[in-house]
Every structure is written in structure tokens, then in C-alpha cells.
């Protein structure tokens, strides 16, 4: 081997041709990922926007859909109602979540493990199931709470009426406050006690310190929680259908449903859905501008120790408040749901002769679809979780290691679906893929694809966070010893990320099992999921069977999540053991 040939080879390697070849590989990768994201995210949203401007049947350009959608005062009223609902839920959820998060993260309140478990139970409960529980509790004439009130005071009427905007806000807030709780407590866990000590020694007592120092330090987390609660609330379909309709008001999601009645008006539905999109975008812009240039994390790394504040007798007050919120979100609805699940006729109340296993028997043995539905739900949710995590992990890797140009576009597309309410996304998916050429209507595929897109933002945020915690030097160590990038990923990155990925998997799996708004438009007769079946059952008032199905859903989800958490040594809030 002469030196010259070595030189030639070196020259060849650094030549333009091979540089182009390497560029090809990264461009191909970028194109592949873009294609997937375009399919999942861009196309449905674009189809939605285009549909809104098209005339039914002819496809001509028109603004008529917007006129119809917004020319009607009742439609506008529904939009206003949605905003009211969103704001109410955001505020109430914050009121529930923040004190509890503070108590658990920073004080010596007793019973923390129990309260955390209850918050988890609230997280797992779908809002429409909570709605049914609350209907059983606070129906104006028949709710248990009202009956107790009437018995105690001899009044003729109850005092709680769940069929009202207030009732709806309560029902949604008690199942969505866990999001705010998780964000806030994670952020609070990172605040050094020295921040509070500094205020303390300058003369501020516990309450003032908490309000002026501790909580403002986690403002981004709280605002994040507010935004998520707001967006969830305006996009919900199940709980409003159960409570708002009998209360004789509409929200955007129930109104959208009407556009799919006879005759079907997808284009008007699309036009009507646009403001939801606009509101969501506005929310995010607001968040950005509110937080601005203030920093929120401790500027130095040292001294980050966190000590619990001793509350003295006040810790019982905090526990009382936490238990009150848990009662509203878990105990009370669970009790009535269990009563109905084991009742022959739930209206007959708590009596031994009203007890039966028949509802479960009916579901698991007699009713032919129930078993398949239950299986569908967990299989689809699991597949969705795997798909979402795999895809977003790949994209997060590419973005964080800057493997392709304009990688931020990929990241943006992953997070974009967050902006689209579930029901609107489903309509977009339906518009894009239900008909030929793909003809995915009624298949499991369209459902899984829709769900995957819906949960891309959560999956991406978790994957990216997990990746951020791993120092790239770990992989570089492998590569400098001669291993390729893929080897480094397989042998170093994935094992290190196992726990964080499993946590992310659970964060996608659980909401997927309870998802109704997106499912209701995408299920076919063979791909029904539990949420849709619960909704259908609620239509014929079979609360006994419905409660039994709800109980099955809850038990199974909790079991899976508990097993998962045990395996990875973290709970769903991604705290370390």
C-alpha cells in the first residue's frame, strides 16, 4: 500500500461526491419524518380548513359555511358557553390543584401518599364517567346529596342542580385538575428552600412567603396547567352532552355534533370549528408573552435542598381541603357508581335486596360487544402509546442532536396537534382519510392514527424531556471507541431512557383509554371503544350496566398503570422513588 493511494482515498472521502452522499442520508431522514408528520398532522388540519371554505357536494370556494355557522345566534351562544366553561374549569381546577400541590410538595401535611393516590384516581376517571356519577349525586330531584339534604332539613327540593353551567364546570374541573397538579408539584419540587428562607428571615411568614415567593416561582407551571385545563374543557364532548343538553344549553362540541346530523354538513362543521383552533393558538401566544423575560428557575445550581415547612395545626386544615377535593372528584362519584354497578335498579338505593352481580355478568357474558369493546380499548390505547412514543422519540433524537437541517419544523409539527381540540382533529381525520382512496372509515387504523396524532404533543414533550436528561457525551464515548450511531442508541441511549419512556407510555396510554371526543367520530361498528359504548349506554339510561362498565374500565386502567409504575419505579407524575 503506497502513501499515494492513502492520499487518494483521503481525498476521495472528503470530496464533494461523498459529502453529497452524506447529505442525502440526512435529507432522506428529514423527508421521511416530514412525510409521516404531514400525514398525521398537516393533512387533516389542512383538509379541515379547506372543507370549511368549500361548498357541499360541489367543492366550490365559498364563505357560506362561515355565514351559516356564525349567522345563527344559538351557534354564537354555544361558542360563548364554551368559553365560559373553559375559563370556569381553568380557574376551579387551579383552585383545587395548587394548594394541594403546595401542601404535598413543600409542607409536612400528613397522608400525602393517600392524597396522591386519589389524585391519580381522578386522573384516570374519564370526565363523562364523572358526569354520570355526579348526575346520580346531584340530580335536582333524585341526586343522593339532595335526598340527604331533603331528609335532614325536610325541604321539598334539593339544593344542588347538576344540570347547570356551574354543575358542568364542577364535573369537568374535578377530573382535569390532576394536570395542573402534576405540573405545579413537579415545579414546586425544584424550588430551593433557600428561596423561602430568604423571605422568611426578612420578615415574611409562611402564607406571605408562599403567595409572594413560592407560587410566583412556579408561575409557568401554573399557567401551563390553566391553559391545558381550558383547552381540555372546551374540547370535551361527553360531559357536556350529558349535562348541558338537559340543562338546555349547547357548547361548541355538542353543536358540532349537530352538524353531523341529518343532513350531514361537514363543511359547516369545519367552519364552525375554526374559532376553537384560533382560541387555542391565542392561548399559546398569551402564555409566551405573559412569561416573557423573567427567569423562573434558580440561577445557581447549589443549595437546592428542599425542606418541608412545618405547618403546625394548619396541616390538618390542608389535609381537610385535600380530602374535600378528593371527595368531590373521587369518593362521592365512586360510591354512587359502585352502588349503581351492583344494583338491580339504582333508584332503589342502598339496600341488600338491591344487590346483584348481574350487570357485570351481562357485560362480560351476555352482551356480545362488551368483551370485544374492552379488548379494543386497551389494545388500541397500547398501540397508540407505542406508536406515539416511538415516533416522537425518533424525532426528539433528531431534533436534539440536530441531525437534519430545520429540525425545529419537526418539533413544531409534533406539538401542533395540541392546538387542535380532539373533536376537531377527528373531523379533520374523517375528512381526510375516511373516504377513498384510503377508505379508512370504520377501521382500527384510522382510530389509532387519530389517537396517535392527538397524543403526539404529550409523547413528544416526554421524549424530549427524557432525552435532555442524557448527556450526549454518553453516546460520543461509544462512537469514539468505534461504535456507530445506531449501536450507541441501542446499547446506551435506550437502556438509559427505559424508565423515562415507560413513564411517557403511561402518560399516553391512560388518556387514550378514556378518550371520547376524538373516538366518537372515528369508531366503526367493529372498532367501538369503551368510551363510546359508555356514551351509547347513557343514551338509553341503563345506568346500572353503564356503571359496571365504568368500574371495569377504571379497575383495569389503574391496574395497568400501577403495574407499569412499579416496573419503572416512578409514579405517573414521573417523580423518582
Amino acid at each position: 500500500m503506497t502513501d499515494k493511494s492513502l492520499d487518494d482515498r483521503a481525498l476521495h472521502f472528503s470530496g464533494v461526491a461523498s459529502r453529497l452522499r452524506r447529505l442525502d442520508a440526512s435529507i432522506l431522514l428529514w423527508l421521511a419524518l416530514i412525510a409521516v408528520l404531514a400525514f398525521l398532522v398537516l393533512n387533516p388540519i389542512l383538509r379541515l380548513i379547506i372543507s370549511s371554505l368549500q361548498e357541499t357536494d360541489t367543492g366550490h370556494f365559498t364563505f357560506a359555511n362561515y355565514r351559516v355557522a356564525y349567522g345563527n345566534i344559538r351557534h354564537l351562544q354555544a361558542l360563548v358557553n364554551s368559553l365560559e366553561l373553559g375559563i370556569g374549569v381553568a380557574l376551579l381546577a387551579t383552585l383545587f390543584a395548587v394548594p394541594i400541590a403546595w401542601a404535598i410538595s413543600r409542607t409536612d401535611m400528613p397522608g400525602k401518599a393517600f392524597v396522591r393516590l386519589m389524585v391519580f384516581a381522578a386522573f384516570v376517571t374519564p370526565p363523562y364517567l364523572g358526569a354520570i356519577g355526579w348526575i346520580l349525586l346531584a340530580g335536582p330531584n333524585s341526586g343522593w346529596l339532595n335526598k340527604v339534604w331533603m331528609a335532614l332539613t325536610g325541604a321539598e327540593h334539593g339544593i344542588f342542580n347538576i344540570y347547570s353551567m356551574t354543575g358542568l364546570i364542577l364535573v369537568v374541573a374535578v377530573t382535569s385538575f390532576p394536570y395542573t397538579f402534576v405540573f405545579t408539584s413537579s415545579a414546586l419540587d425544584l424550588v430551593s428552600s433557600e428561596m423561602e428562607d430568604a423571605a422568611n428571615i426578612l420578615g415574611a411568614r409562611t402564607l406571605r412567603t408562599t403567595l409572594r415567593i413560592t407560587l410566583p416561582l412556579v408561575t409557568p407551571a401554573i399557567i401551563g396547567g390553566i391553559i391545558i385545563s381550558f383547552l381540555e374543557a372546551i374540547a370535551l364532548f361527553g360531559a357536556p352532552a350529558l349535562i348541558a343538553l338537559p340543562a338546555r344549553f349547547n357548547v361548541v362540541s355538542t353543536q358540532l355534533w349537530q352538524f353531523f346530523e341529518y343532513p350531514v354538513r361537514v363543511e359547516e362543521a369545519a367552519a364552525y370549528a375554526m374559532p376553537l383552533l384560533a382560541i387555542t393558538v391565542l392561548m399559546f401566544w398569551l402564555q409566551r408573552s405573559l412569561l416573557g423575560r423573567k427567569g423562573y428557575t434558580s440561577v445557581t445550581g447549589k443549595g437546592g435542598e428542599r425542606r418541608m415547612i412545618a405547618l403546625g395545626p394548619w396541616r390538618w386544615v390542608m389535609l381537610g381541603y385535600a380530602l374535600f377535593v378528593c371527595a368531590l372528584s373521587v369518593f362521592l362519584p365512586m360510591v354512587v357508581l359502585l352502588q349503581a354497578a351492583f344494583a338491580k335498579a339504582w333508584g332503589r338505593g342502598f339496600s341488600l335486596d338491591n344487590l346483584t352481580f348481574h350487570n357485570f355478568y351481562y357485560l362480560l357474558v351476555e352482551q356480545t360487544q362488551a368483551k370485544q369493546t374492552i379488548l379494543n380499548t386497551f389494545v388500541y390505547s397500547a398501540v397508540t402509546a407505542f406508536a406515539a412514543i416511538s415516533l416522537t422519540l425518533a424525532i426528539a433524537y433528531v431534533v436534539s442532536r440536530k441531525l437534519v437541517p430545520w429540525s425545529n419544523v419537526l418539533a413544531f409539527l409534533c406539538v401542533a396537534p395540541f392546538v387542535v381540540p380532539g373533536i376537531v382533529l377527528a373531523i379533520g381525520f374523517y375528512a381526510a382519510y375516511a373516504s377513498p382512496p384510503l377508505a379508512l372509515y370504520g377501521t382500527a387504523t384510522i382510530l389509532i392514527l387519530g389517537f396517535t396524532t392527538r397524543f403526539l404533543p404529550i409523547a413528544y414533550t416526554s421524549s424530549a424531556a427524557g432525552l435532555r436528561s442524557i448527556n450526549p457525551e454518553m453516546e460520543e464515548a461509544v462512537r469514539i471507541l468505534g461504535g456507530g450511531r445506531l449501536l450507541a442508541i441501542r446499547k446506551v441511549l435506550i437502556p438509559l431512557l427505559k424508565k423515562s419512556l415507560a413513564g411517557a407510555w403511561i402518560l399516553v396510554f391512560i388518556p387514550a383509554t378514556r378518550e371520547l371526543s376524538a373516538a366518537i367520530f372515528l369508531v366503526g361498528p367493529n372498532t367501538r371503544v369503551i368510551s363510546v359504548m359508555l356514551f351509547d349506554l347513557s343514551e338509553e339510561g341503563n345506568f346500572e350496566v353503564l356503571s359496571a362498565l365504568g368500574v371495569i374500565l377504571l379497575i383495569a386502567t389503574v391496574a395497568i398503570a400501577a403495574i407499569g409504575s412499579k416496573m419503572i419505579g416512578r409514579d405517573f407524575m414521573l417523580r423518582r422513588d
Partner: protein
Amino acid sequence: MFTIRRRNFILGSSALVALGTGPKVSAQAAASMTPHEKELYDAAKKEGELTWYTAHSDDITSQALGRSFESLYPGIKVNVLRTTAQVAYQRITQEIKASAIQCDVLSSTDLGHSVELKAKGAFEKYIPENSSKVLDIYKGYDPDGYYFVTSAGLIGIGYNTAKVKEADAPKNWTDLLDPRWNNNIALGHPGFSGYVGTWALTLRNQYGWDFFEKLAKNNPRVGRSINDTVTMLNAGESAVAGSGPAATLLESVRKGNPLAMVYPTDGSVLIIAPSSIMKGCKHPNAARLFMEFLMSPGASQIWVDHFTESIRPEVPASKIAKPAKDLKIIRPTVAEITKGVPEVIKQWRETFGA
């Protein structure tokens, strides 16, 4: 362990039959099948299953019908999808638009839907053998053979006997306007339920829309399905079911709930509910066989067991439910339904707010 009730007995025995005693039963079934049915059955067996969208009855009754069909014709699985009429219609139109027909047999409670879908060419023409054997009042709705009446139900006024004495209960539709029923009336929603749509149309014809304006003042609790009203009565949430479905209500009574049925003096509303085979469906032979089944005495017996009308003269009404022929009946014509129900839905939303 469980109280063996007649319904459970039927279901149980159907299950047993389906599970264990196959050949013997199929021999029996084969013996009672007409040659036409046998021909259909042989073809249907190859298809293996059937998807049925039904709004005709509650889930339990629908399941009972499905199980009965399966036991009579082993080898054909029935996927029962029970929803309200509007929801079923939505799903059908979605499937048509997507050119992906999943439904084989559609049983709707809104005759207007059938007329419209027939006009669109969504149905397959098939005249069941049994269609000539049903009661006269259920014959001849579509001479072209695209849809047939397979079920009928009565709507009256229901009330909770624990809250309302028989003497005080409303006797007629107009009694519902009495202010003493304020906050205590349960209704379904015509935007969801075909039954309620036709009921509202009938009363509009009878009394004018003014009736509903006044009814709205009594603050009724509006659900979705017509069966929601029975739930409200059971719960004690409402004392009176303004649109009370006889079948569901009497089922509930049988379960032990304190309810009673009133057949209004001006007339009970009779709902005629049709079934059709979807054009381009995946299991056409099974669908045809199912249509025969729906109009068979066996099916009518199940209807009667669940307090719905029998459509076959051979099958008498139950002892508890009053059959249509013994009552004063009011109902709109098919043309009125087709045009009127969408109108009524609109008016309802304006009057009731949602």
C-alpha cells in the same frame, strides 16, 4: 343465585342453545325453515356474520333478538349496535360518504330517514316472504320493496306511582301543561330520538306548536333517547314522563320499579319503525334472512315479551301491555314525517334552547 325471570330464561336458553346443542337445534330450525329461508341460510352461513344498526328497542331487547337469530341460524354471528335513530342515521351517512358500508340491516325509528335514504338509492330492494304475513296496519308502506315495518311501539304518559297518585296523574297530553308539573316532566329530544321526533310531530299536528311553547314553560328535563324519560322516572328525578315509551316503561315495572302507564284520551302515539337492507352491504344474504326473521312470529314473540307491539297476527299481545288495536291511536303520515320531523327538530331547538 339470580332470580330466574322469563327474560333471563329466554336469554339463558338461547345462550345454551347457541353454545351446546347445535346440530339438534339446527335440525329443528331447518325443519321449520321454508325452502326460501333454507336457501338464504345456506348462502348466509358462508357470509358468517351480520351487522345490525337498530334504534327500535333498548339494548337488552335488541340483544335478545340477536341471540334468538343466532340460535335459529347457527353459524351467523349478529353484531348488534343499538343507538338512537339520529345517531344511526349519522353513522349510515358517514359510511355512504366514505363508500365503506359497515351496516347490513338498518332498523330506524324515523320513517323520514327511510324515505330519504331510499330516494338516495342507499337501500337494496328485497321483499321478504314474511312481509305479506304481518298485520294489515303494518303492510304496504313501501310497495317498491326498499323498506318494511318490522316494529311498532306506543308512546303515552308515564308516571312514578310513589310520587303521584293515580287520581292525580295526567289523563291527556294537554294535562302536561298544568303548572303543578313544573320541573317534574321528563322528555326525550327529537334531535336524537326518532320516537320523540314523530311524537312531537304528532302533537304539533294535534295541538299546534303553541303546545310546546307552553310545555317549555313547565321546565321539563330534556334527555336524548326516549328511554331517558323512564330513567328519570326511576331515579325520581321527574314525576311524569311526557313522552313515555310503553315498552321500556313496562320493562321497568317488571324489574320492580314503581311506575305506571297512562294511555292519553286524545290518543296514544303509535310509532311505525321500518327496517331495510343497505345497498352494497357486506353480508346481503344474511341481511335478507334477518329481514325474514324480524317479521317472523319468533321475533314478534320477543317483542311482546318486552312489551313492544306484535306485528304478526298469530302472536297475541302480552297480558300487561295494552296492544295498539285496543287503544285510540294517533300518528302522522309518512309524507308528514319526512317533511315534518326536521322542521320539528328546528322548532324544538328554538323553543327549548338546545
